[in-house]
């Protein structure tokens, strides 16, 4: 009886697929590169052939180019039915083998993007062993058909989630706008400096992978209650610390070669909202001096490398916050490496 039912399902599938208008154009199959879905072209006509191409996985050449598939090898297709432009895929339990949540979500993403990209398909329904999956693919509701355009954002790596994470880690201030703006780029740069990643201020897959598992920066040493500032010359980062906890990590630029910012322990001794640099004839807003003529101050150009004449340039987004934090007498430690 069971065998007969399966034969029937295959027949339904074949009839349905045959009834579908053949698409002579090359199909698109979605694989993964560093966690992101990437489309590759395949000579595949219609849903069944495109699905077969997906389940076959990337070619050796594509693998060498860094493409992979979250779908395990040998996922059985129990049936494939197309009705009113809605594709119902019934797959074997192998499609849901135990894996990290993100991998499980990627499986659904690959299936829906691939099958949904076939011309004429308006939705994709995924069944496992003939039933509606409940909890097998965390974060994806498969009780209803999915459209490629309406796939849920990856909870950990969506832009909003990443921005939130930068806030949680102290690279962005709390309560800022929800949008991803220039300020987010500055926070990304600060994170890249802390994580010792290439400093370009852009969230690439390597940054995202590091961000997802990152923990809050820690001070170089624990000294107890009170406020202090640690400046890391090699990372080009200032840590604003309160009670041994890093409240904010700020992107800065210290003295260029030949104008090095002196390492050592100091205290903020002079503060000026708008300071005039006599030797360099330039205004320095929000200046907090901590040794001689060396100060933290706002500057319009804060590159990812040491570029100043000895002062610590602070980006415009963080300058007033930095000024308020660095009250008179605040200890400042400038370290070669932290």
């Amino acid at each position, binding site marked *: 009886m069971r065998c007969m039912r399966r034969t029937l399902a295959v027949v339904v599938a074949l009839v349905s697929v045959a009834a579908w208008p053949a698409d002579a154009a090359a199909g698109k199959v979605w694989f993964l590169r560093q966690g992101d879905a990437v489309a590759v072209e395949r000579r595949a006509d219609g849903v069944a052939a495109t699905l077969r191409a997906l389940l076959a996985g990337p070619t050796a050449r594509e693998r060498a180019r860094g493409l992979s598939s979250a779908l395990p090898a040998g996922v059985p297709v129990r049936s494939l039915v197309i009705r009113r432009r809605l594709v119902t895929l019934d797959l074997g*339990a192998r499609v*849901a083998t*135990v894996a*990290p949540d993100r991998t499980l979500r990627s499986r659904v993403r690959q299936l829906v993007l691939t099958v949904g990209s076939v011309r004429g398909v308006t939705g994709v329904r995924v*069944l*496992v*062993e*003939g*039933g*509606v*999956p*409940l*909890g*097998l693919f*965390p974060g994806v509701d498969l009780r209803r058909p999915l459209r490629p355009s309406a796939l849920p954002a990856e*909870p950990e790596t969506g832009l909003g989630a990443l921005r*939130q*994470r930068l806030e*949680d*880690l*102290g690279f962005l201030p709390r309560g800022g706008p929800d949008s991803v703006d220039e300020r987010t780029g500055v926070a990304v740069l600060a994170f890249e400096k802390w994580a010792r990643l290439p400093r370009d201020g852009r969230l690439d897959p390597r940054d995202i992978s590091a961000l997802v*598992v*990152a*923990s*809050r920066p*820690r001070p170089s040493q624990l000294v107890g209650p009170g406020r202090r500032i640690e400046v890391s010359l090699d990372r080009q980062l200032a840590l604003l610390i309160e009670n041994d*906890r*890093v409240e904010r990590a700020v992107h800065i630029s210290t003295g260029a070669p030949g104008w090095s910012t002196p390492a050592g322990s100091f205290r903020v001794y002079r503060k000026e909202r708008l300071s005039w640099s006599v030797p360099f004839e330039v205004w320095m807003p929000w200046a907090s001096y901590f040794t001689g003529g060396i100060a933290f101050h706002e500057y319009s150009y804060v590159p990812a490398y040491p570029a100043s004449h000895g002062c610590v340039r602070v980006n415009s987004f963080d300058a007033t916050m930095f000024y308020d934090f660095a009250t008179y007498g605040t200890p400042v430690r400038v370290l070669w490496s932290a």
Partner: protein
Amino acid sequence: MSRTALLAAALVTASVTASGAVAATAPTRTAGELAVALSLPAPGFQVGSVRGARVVYARGLEVDVARVLARRLGLARVRLIQVRDTTRLLAGGAKRWDVSLAQLVPVQKARAVAFSVPYLPAGQAVLAARGVPRPRGLTALRRLVVCAVRRTPGAAFLAQRLGTSRRLVARDLGELLRWTQTGRCEAAVADLPTLAARLRGSGGRYGRVVGAIDTGDAFAVALPAGSPLLADVNRALTRLRRDGTLRRIALRWLAFDPARLRVLARAR
């Protein structure tokens, strides 16, 4: 010795020999089959796929417990049934199942069902963020920024027992774990079984579970009130706990065995 006495002795010997299976003919609704009510999904405990009320594929801690329980009861088959609303499991009316495993904590009010001995502790767990020294009691916990999910027993515990101003309330477990990972929280109090399932495969990025808060709660198997199966289920579960089977199942699906956690405090 009379023939009757010999027969009685033989029967006793046979029953002792067959002690591995609690009852060769466990009194179930359908002979040889255990009908198990689940309430999918509960990550780590029961996930799968359903067609109508029939669970066609399932896996998780409670699914494994149901299967070993059936084996111990001498039943060859397990039929899994989906009951979407867990309150229906405990409500009155005819039951289509023999036992139910759905993260159920025994409650006095549920008169329509009887509960077995517990199979898993279900109190609260204390998670310490990375780099935070292990708190060994409530006093140490009070010195930390401690978080919980709002409107949970964890949040109530923070308010009633910790009495510290250094506490934060997260919207959900995802936010709580993010805060713990990123250092906004130094410790967190959360539902023990849920946390144990969520931390599995996380590679320690959220910190480590350092102890439990005993609330007196535990998961138990529910049976229809007056079920003749109750004594057999209790015996089987006791044996499964003693021989380490429950521990092995817990370690298969959870990040740690909840029964082995050090108790830091009692909620009641």
